[in-house]
């Protein structure tokens, strides 16, 4: 008879790594998504080009390859990262590229009439973006941001490939040591599901908060 408590503890340690990766990766993704998404609608050609290049590159190559580059190739350029740093960087940049298009789409969806009102009221471009466009665009971004965060959570499993002991890595360890596949993988199945569900709940709460007072404004 196997004593499962130690093995489950191992998986929970991995779960903590997965949570850290998801939170930090998402934080980076949000920052990058706004920077690149707003860069895409900049009036400066160079900024637009830079943002577009980043987005197309990171959407167009696999997270797996990006992670290997960050972890195994960057050291040749003198940049050595811990596995956790490399994981956060690769996941954040990858998901941020998708998020950037969400930001751009939402900003574009706020119509010409609002922009013209800003000009007529003599707001600067920055003031218009900060006070008028973004507050209205944010509710449009949130549902897709929720999807992206869940994608990122599930994407964290690839970091096991650079020896980061996340939840999936630990499940494989447990499987190798006990010979049981069902219990470790059933455990992480439930854990992934619960984490994704918590993200959904959190996003729904955020959505309610930012759309307060906007009832009936948008279809």
């Amino acid at each position, binding site marked *: 008879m196997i004593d499962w408590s130690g093995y489950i503890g191992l998986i929970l340690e991995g779960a903590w790594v997965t949570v850290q990766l998801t939170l930090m990766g998402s934080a980076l993704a949000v920052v990058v998504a706004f920077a690149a998404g707003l860069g895409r609608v900049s009036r400066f050609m160079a900024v637009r080009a830079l943002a577009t290049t980043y987005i197309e590159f990171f959407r167009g190559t696999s997270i797996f390859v990006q992670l290997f580059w960050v972890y195994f190739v960057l050291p040749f350029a003198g940049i050595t990262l811990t596995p956790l740093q490399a994981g956060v960087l690769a996941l954040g940049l990858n998901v941020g590229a998708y998020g950037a298009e969400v930001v751009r789409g939402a900003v574009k969806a706020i119509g010409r*009439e609002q922009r013209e009102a800003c*000009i*007529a009221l*003599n*707001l600067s471009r920055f*003031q218009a973006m900060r006070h008028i466009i973004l507050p209205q665009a944010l509710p449009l971004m949130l549902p897709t941001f929720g999807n992206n965060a869940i994608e990122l959570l599930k994407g964290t499993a690839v970091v096991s490939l650079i020896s980061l002991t996340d939840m999936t890595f630990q499940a494989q360890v447990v499987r190798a040591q006990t010979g049981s596949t069902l219990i470790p993988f059933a455990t992480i199945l439930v854990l992934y599901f619960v984490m994704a569900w918590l993200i959904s709940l959190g996003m729904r709460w955020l959505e309610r908060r930012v759309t307060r007072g906007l009832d009936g404004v948008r279809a």
Partner: protein
Amino acid sequence: MSEPIIRIDSIVKRYGPLTVLDGLSMEVMPGEKLALIGPSGSGKTTILRILMTLETISDGFIQVDGDQLYHMKKAGSLVPADERHLHKMREKIGMVFQHFNLFPHKCVLDNVTLAPMLTKGVPRAAAEKRAMELLDMVGLADKAKSMPAQLSGGQKQRVAIARALALSPKIMLFDEVTSALDPELVEEVLSVMRRLAAETDMTMLLVTHEMGFAHDFADRVLFFDRGKIVEEGRPEDIFRHPKQERTQTFLRKIIAAGHRV
């Protein structure tokens, strides 16, 4: 005799191959109330949008309150205006839109106080005091904390008027401000504008299809067709004794459509 506050000098506006305004010139005196009428597509709204810098011009010059609108002096010669120059010029001009364009995520009071606080650095308390005076003037002081979505069209448009007035522009542009309203809500907006015309010496340019209102409100009426001023004069002359055939045809059609003159 004072100088015109707006001097439009042979401006051209093209959209691709389409020429909307072709060498148009006109002047507006300070304090004048001007009504621009004419069939849709005649270029009257385009003039307001150009004055508000929502559109650029393809050629020509516009002088507003002594300064060039789309040009500035640099090393002795006129060059295209930069964002800073436009920012300075926009202080003189306010605009009310057909579809109100209120900020839906801000309450009525914040809609009115936002621009004075951001663009002129007015402290919140002073901005709110002034906003309440303006909302009182348009009869909506009790709606200060409402969201735009809770207001009727007429109320929204009155808030939009208060919002534009909060920046104390010298020139106000009204672009078909009652066209999007249900008929029974038109009068409440027009009565606010009548008061405004009577009580202030602001220069006002009005694009409208309300011929009766244009008649009472304006000192001068310009009839536009195909990007040109076909006829202009005092309201009683334009509406009662139009000289040009195109003006006559237009007014006949408008009356046939049920508008009062």
